[in-house]
């Protein structure tokens, strides 16, 4: 049974022709988030005091931990790509396991955070700020889940000794880095920035 990774077309020398379609997707995805950020900041500038007051209920330390966890996960994927290109399957598998473990930790911390917020009376519809909080971080969490599936797929192929197309590896890695980058912005704008 061939895997998704193996079926990915891998035409031509990888470094010669960039996968324009994949980068288009990354930019479009980032732009969609960008729209959310813009609307969030617009609403915040119209309701600054209530946003500040609500933001005080966020658990910044958990946001920080998640930032560090996701940065580590992203770096692990960087190393996994290097290992993959060097055909060092052991190293690739280890780094992907680390990346996946970190993703799981991120998810757990996020769920904990959500539970604590809801218990504290802050829900999807309790205030405009918290609507944005849950929706922004929720859509981001959806991206984490999708990225986790892609990384698992990659790791499974590595463990089973199947050839993983370099283009596929780089696409999954780019997606994961995008997820990391978006979180950096969410952490800064929503967690820290709304509280400043």
């Amino acid at each position, binding site marked *: 049974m061939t895997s998704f990774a193996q079926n990915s077309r891998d035409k031509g020398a990888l470094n010669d022709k960039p996968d324009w379609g994949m980068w288009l997707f990354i930019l479009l995805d980032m732009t969609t988030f960008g729209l959310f950020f813009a609307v969030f900041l617009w609403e915040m500038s119209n309701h600054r005091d209530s946003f500040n007051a609500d933001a005080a209920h966020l658990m910044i330390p958990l946001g920080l931990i998640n*930032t560090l966890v996701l*940065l580590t996960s992203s770096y692990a994927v960087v190393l996994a790509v290097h290992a993959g290109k060097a055909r060092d399957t052991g190293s690739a598998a280890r780094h992907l396991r680390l990346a996946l473990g970190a993703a799981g930790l991120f998810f757990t911390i996020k769920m904990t955070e959500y539970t604590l917020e809801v218990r504290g009376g802050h829900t999807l519809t309790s205030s405009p700020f918290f609507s944005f909080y849950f929706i922004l971080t929720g859509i981001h969490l959806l991206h984490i889940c999708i990225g986790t599936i892609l990384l698992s797929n990659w790791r499974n192929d590595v463990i089973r000794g199947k050839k993983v197309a370099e283009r596929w590896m780089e696409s999954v890695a780019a997606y994961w880095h995008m997820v*990391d980058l978006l979180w950096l912005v969410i952490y*800064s*704008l929503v967690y*820290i*920035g709304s509280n*400043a």
Partner: protein
Amino acid sequence: MTTTTNVQRIVYYALVLVSLFLFIGFETGFGGMQSKRGISAAIAIIAFIKARYVVLDFMELRGTKIMRLFDAWLLLACTVCVLLILR
């Protein structure tokens, strides 16, 4: 290849440190700075600089034609965010 790996490792630690500094800055009230909007704008700029390093060195787009697109995007997004924060 080794050089790139070293740069990536430095970038990773730098991103971790900057994230920690932001947190510490927040906990200490950003040195008593008065302008909340100014602080938020500065934080947004730092966020997009961090994002740029992820694109440059994690996504490994440094020196590529695609990086110009990302630079334009990051600049535009950062400008829009800062303007909205400061309005």
